[in-house]
């Protein structure tokens, strides 16, 4: 069963198209990435799926039907614009937000306490939100989106403002939820996290669908025989510029990434390289999601 389906959905605000004829589906139990540059329409898409705003045309099905009150209770949402009651005590606020998802008060209390403990925030439970550090507020916000044990979790930029340790905690939580069979929709422009965590992605640009499919499939599809090469000596870099048939070279920390011209095989490049320098590592690689992202957006704006 699809956890979520969009069929030809469009939405415009004040004569400006924000979402244009979008169709996709999210399978149950996967981590689904919603990618795109700022202003691509990711947040609008999420608001449409949560029935906060209505589509102009098209159909949206959540858990196989239109989104009713009961279905809303099975969704957890972390909005990009974080918002909490600043003057309410943590525990009270979490209980209230859980109650709004129809969790009975006692159960809400218990799960709020155990979640606070698991994120090492239990000692702050009687504090007000405004007394917490920014990072703690972020964690509380994340916590408030999962307190009612949702089946579908929608996270809009969950990593922004988190330190590496907290980022790791949130990543682990996301994977844990997927392994429990829950569905996670991850909207982000942090491509590293998306590549690492997502099973499938939808990429939007200017309200249109530009990429859609499994992460490995998209990378393979966009693979341009790029080669990762690591030299023993850094100065060897200049030598490879003389090699014929190389379209582009990108320098990374320890290695370079070589993009051969069309029709030039990896083997041919390797032979040329071996003649000129000592090589520690040679690896045929798919482009990262990040490169595909930049390339797609740039080619779209060049049109």
């Amino acid at each position, binding site marked *: 069963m699809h956890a979520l389906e969009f069929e030809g959905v469009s939405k415009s605000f004040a004569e400006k198209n924000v979402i244009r004829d979008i169709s996709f589906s999210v399978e149950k139990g996967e981590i689904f990435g919603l990618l795109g540059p700022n202003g691509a329409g990711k947040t609008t898409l999420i*608001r449409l799926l949560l029935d*906060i705003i209505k589509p102009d045309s098209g159909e949206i099905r959540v858990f196989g039907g239109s989104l009713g009150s009961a279905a809303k209770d099975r969704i957890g949402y972390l909005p990009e614009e974080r*918002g909490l*009651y600043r003057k309410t005590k943590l525990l009270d606020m979490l209980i209230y*937000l859980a109650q*709004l998802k129809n969790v009975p008060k006692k159960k809400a209390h218990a799960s709020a306490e155990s979640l606070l403990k698991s994120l090492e925030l239990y000692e702050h439970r009687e504090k007000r939100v405004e007394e917490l550090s920014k990072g703690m507020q972020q964690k509380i916000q994340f916590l408030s989106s999962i307190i009612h044990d949702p089946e579908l979790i929608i996270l809009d930029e969950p990593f922004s403002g988190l330190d590496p340790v907290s980022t790791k905690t949130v990543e682990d939580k996301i994977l844990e939820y997927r392994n429990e069979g829950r569905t996670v929709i991850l909207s982000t422009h942090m491509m590293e996290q998306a590549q690492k965590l997502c099973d499938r992605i939808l990429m939007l640009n200017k309200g249109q669908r530009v990429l859609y499919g499994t992460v490995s499939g998209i990378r393979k599809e966009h693979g341009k025989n790029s080669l990762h090469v690591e030299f023993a000596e850094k100065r060897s870099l200049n030598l490879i510029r003389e090699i014929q048939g190389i379209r582009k070279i990108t320098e990374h920390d320890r290695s370079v990434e070589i993009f051969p011209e069309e029709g030039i095989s990896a083997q041919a490049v390797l032979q040329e390289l071996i003649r000129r320098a000592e090589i520690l590592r040679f690896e045929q690689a798919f482009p990262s999601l990040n490169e595909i992202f930049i390339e797609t957006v740039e080619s779209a704006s060049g049109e």
Partner: protein
Amino acid sequence: MSKLSGKTLIVARYEFLKTIKRKEFLFMTFAFPLILAGIAFIPPLLAGTTPAEDQSIGYIDMTDSFDFPEFSTSEGFSVGPLGAKASTIEFVKYEESSEARKALQSGQISSYLIVPEDFLETGVIELYTSEKGTPVPGAELSTELSNIAIDSLLKGSVDEPVLQRVKNPVNMKLYNVGDNGESSEQGIAEILTNFGLPFLMAFLLFFSIFSASGYLLRGVAEEKENRIMEVLLSSVTPSELLTGKVLGLGAIGLLQIVVWLSVVVFGGGYALPVKIEPMLLFISLIYFLLGFLFFASMMAGIGAVTGSLQESQQVAGIFTFAAAFPLVFMQFILTKPDSSLAIFLSLFPFTSPVAMLSRIGASEVPLYQIAASLFILFVSIHAVIVLSSRLFRVYLLMYGKRPGVNEILKNVRAGGR
């Protein structure tokens, strides 16, 4: 409004509990009666203490015709349960003004009077007081002297009743002629009931309506400003949120006005000689509920459209001013409750709760006018709620520039689809 769902009640409960813990709410609700009590009790206390001091006043009668009594007791005047305390003035006769001055300087007397020889022509009596020393109850003394003068001039030459009439020529009594031709005496209690009480009730109504709907405005604007709105809307529909807030804060306002009215009924009945008809209380509760619904829904719409708390309060101020209009014209409404302006104000939904309540307190208002006012208010409430829930839906998540009136109207129409 949608049917009451469980989530509506959760929102209502949360808003109620959150507001009841607010310091401003507790202060307004409980300090206000104390202030009111202060107004009722403290002036009589003060009035009861100051002039009650007994004093001696010297006099030099140059006409030699005045018959000063040795003592004069004045009753004093004060409102309240403490009653008046009588003060006594002792009159001491002196032959020469130098003697009197010495006595004044030595503190034997607090002041002295000189009745000049030409008193009959001029009517002048001079009062000399030391700069320090107790103040002389001038008004009371003047009345007392008038009586002494009348006595001295007329005693023996006219009859006693005539003497009394000269001292106190007219006693005005006011009567109201009721619809059934029965007339009733109008005392100070009646005047307070007819003018003071409607004003007080209207004032309380105005304040409770605006403090409760003010909380609503603030709540919505804050939730929008700190962006928790989006989290809330992923759990509840805008109309569930709106209804829950209106219910929760309506209960708060009701609690407040019940506390206030109880103070007026029980406390006021004790401190002031007034009685409040149960019907007036009942009508004021009805007008509170309707007035609150009207303004609260409007405030919710304003909170949804504007971007920040400050901005929303500015816009809301315009509407609050409209509602305060009857308070400004209160004297007019109370003295001419059947004029067309008063009738208009009591029908116009922005002003009807306060204006109608004042009119009912001041005079008999035809039943059809009350019914019409309630009906108009009811219809307006419905319109405002429909309008506000649309604004709520469209604007809750929009930030940045405040939309223009035309755009709002367009979206309201579109929101109906």
